[in-house]
């Protein structure tokens, strides 16, 4: 075992640190359509902090893929509590998808303005009747001349209320024998007539996501990625990018540090919260879980580099464990704060900008979103442990 990254990477780490020292204060507090957010995104993409390996021809940084460099960037940002607050759906999901599946014309047209923050994307996957069972989605399109005509509804669509474009899963082959083979991946301008966006307020009181309605929405047939019926394959690749981003032990460590600092500052009856043995034991138990996930991440990182371990299960559990852990961590902060843990928004006496309260609720959302914890357990059981799928209704024997 050798956990050092080597001298050339330590130089790279210093370079990233210097960037964060100089520019870290410019990060917006939350992601929205503002000049500051677009400027921040340009700063990150042009310096190769995000979208580092996108070729120069498409406006990217053009770096060779390097697992340790990506890792160092993630570690340093988390440590400095600087969030790569950018249009994740566009930069993190659509761009890699186009690089893998898009035509040359699509790459030329969409990637650079996406990196620059000129085009903001949203993801149209979930529907009221297709959540965990996404492949049964019913938003459909038929071809009329050189246009797709789209009808249906999407839900939980983050950023749709200010996005320019949506990448969207739509049923175009209703007669395909398998439901997965009837889906296409379409790129839809949000200002197309027939699109209506209704914001859904979240329990955090922020309007992060929306319902989107399509009524005879017409887009050119060349705005499809990878051909008709290929959407499920394309989307699974994109979902892989999303889930990989959800378990970040460096971020959990940084949040844990905020919590332990708070517990050493905040006092009750003249003693710090850390002096309370019950609170102290609870935060130590969380620390143990964070350290386990950090080790798990190191193991996966090493396997990515050396290809000498079986880390299938170690990867499958990250979404489940990572989101549950963050929810518990933020929830512990709310608990130890007592009445102060109930304060919100701009209240007097608010601690740490209300981050703990907001994250406590937000991470409950992430436990549900991106494949619920229950779906994750099915995946772990079936793909990790080899247990059989539940028989479909009508196939199993009655009980």
């Amino acid at each position, binding site marked *: *075992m*050798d*956990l*050092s*990254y*080597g001298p050339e990477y330590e130089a790279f780490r210093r370079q990233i640190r210097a960037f964060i020292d100089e520019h870290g204060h410019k990060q917006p507090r939350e992601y929205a359509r503002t000049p500051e957010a677009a400027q921040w995104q340009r700063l990150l993409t042009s310096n190769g902090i995000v979208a580092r390996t996108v070729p120069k021809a498409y406006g990217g940084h053009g770096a060779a893929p390097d697992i*340790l460099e990506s890792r160092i960037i993630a570690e340093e940002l988390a440590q400095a509590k600087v969030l790569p607050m950018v249009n994740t759906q566009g930069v993190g999901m659509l761009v890699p998808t186009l690089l893998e599946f898009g035509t040359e014309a699509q790459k030329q047209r969409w990637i650079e303005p996406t990196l620059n923050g000129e085009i903001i994307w949203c993801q149209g996957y979930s529907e009221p009747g297709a959540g965990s069972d996404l492949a049964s989605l019913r938003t459909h399109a038929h071809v009329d001349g050189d246009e797709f005509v789209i009808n249906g509804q999407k839900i939980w669509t983050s950023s749709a209320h200010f996005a320019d474009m949506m990448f969207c899963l739509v049923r175009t082959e209703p007669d395909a024998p398998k439901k997965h083979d009837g889906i296409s991946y379409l790129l839809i301008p949000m200002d197309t007539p027939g699109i209506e966006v209704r914001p859904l307020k979240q329990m955090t009181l922020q309007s992060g996501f929306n319902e989107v309605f399509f009524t005879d929405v017409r887009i050119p047939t060349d705005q499809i990625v990878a051909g008709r019926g290929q959407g499920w394959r394309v989307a699974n690749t994109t979902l892989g990018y999303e889930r990989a981003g959800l378990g970040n032990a460096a971020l959990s460590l940084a949040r844990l540090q905020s919590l*332990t600092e708070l517990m*050493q500052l905040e006092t009750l009856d003249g003693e710090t919260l*850390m*002096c309370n*043995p019950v609170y*102290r*034991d609870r935060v*130590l*138990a969380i*620390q*143990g*879980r964070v*350290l*386990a*996930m*950090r*080790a*798990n991440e*190191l*193991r996966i*990182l*090493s*396997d990515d*580099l*050396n290809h*000498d*371990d079986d880390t299938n*299960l*170690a990867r499958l*559990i990250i979404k*489940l*464990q990572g989101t549950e852990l963050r929810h518990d961590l933020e929830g512990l902060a709310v608990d130890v704060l007592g009445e102060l843990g109930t304060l919100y928004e701009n209240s007097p006496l608010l601690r740490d900008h209300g981050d703990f309260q907001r994250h406590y609720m937000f991470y409950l959302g992430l436990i549900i979103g991106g494949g619920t914890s*229950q779906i*994750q*357990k*099915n995946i*772990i*059981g*079936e793909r*990790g*442990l*080899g*247990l*059989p*799928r*539940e*028989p479909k209704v009508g196939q*199993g*024997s009655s*009980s």
Partner: protein
Amino acid sequence: MRFGLSEEQRLLQSTLTRLLEEHAPLDAVRNAAQSGDVAPAALRDALTEVGLPGLLVPHNHGGLGLSMLDAALIAEALGQAVAPAPFVAPWVMAPVAIRLGASPEQAHDWLPAIADGTMRIACGVSEHVGSRSGGISHSPSSGLSGEALFVLDPVGSTDYLISDRDGGLHRVAADAPNVDTTLLTTVDRTRSYALVTFDDVAAETLPNANADVIRETIHAGRIAIAADTLGAAQAMLDKSVAYALEREQFGRVIGSFQAVKHLCAEMAAALEPCRAMVWHAAHTYDTVPEEGPLLSCHVKAHLGEVGKMVARTATEVHGGMGFTDLLGLHYWFKRIGVNRQTLGTPERAREDAARLQGWVA
């Protein structure tokens, strides 16, 4: 950067697993548990033949000179097999304590005897994890007096390594006069524990031992016990998955029901990061002195928690069979349960972790 195991470490692991399949199948475990001979000579000879006693003994003293990570891999295999083999005290804690606390002459005499399997040292340091009896007093004139509780691995041992209340460490022959050994009966019948009383017993004192050396010895023991729990819990999970794939109810295997599948997934989700955590803690123990103690406390506490959850859940997946002696699953359940309490409960180990970070006076 390489986090995973080396070729040699994988070989060590598979060699040991095969050896234990041959020499410590469930029947052998049952025999040991029922007879009380939890250090059967046949298994000990097989382990000695591959050099395990000298695992942590340096080369120049006739040992293998391996790392704490290697020790953890062996502990994991022993836990997986619930092997009736004294390990944590004689082959992990004792060599660590002697390397750190003994005089060069003592090390010269004792370490080769550990490595060749003739000196097998049980360890009594529980008073430094948490004091119950007031501990052992020691004076150069009258020797050791008092009670040592929860001495680890006394059956089959030739010697005791005993801490006194002032941070001293002493070696005493197990059959020395005025040493009285009473075996304790725990729920775990695969290993042994003793209450040993001393009445003015002459002892060989380790001149360089102190409270720090004792703590370091406890950290080593904690990592080995955590690794034992990892192996035992992994065995319980594997058995649960196998059972869920075989047992049928309502016309289908129970592993196809989400209620059962999710229990298995929850065990796997909690346990899989533990493997990396044990490797990391063991490696850090040898290589990063400022972080090793913290991780050893955390790995002991965390594996205690996860082990308890897996032990309970795996038993439940097996339904009524899980509760029977016939299946023998209870040997794993009990081993994990005793591991959780030994050398510091999760709460105790976490309090040590808090102290190491300056979070408690």
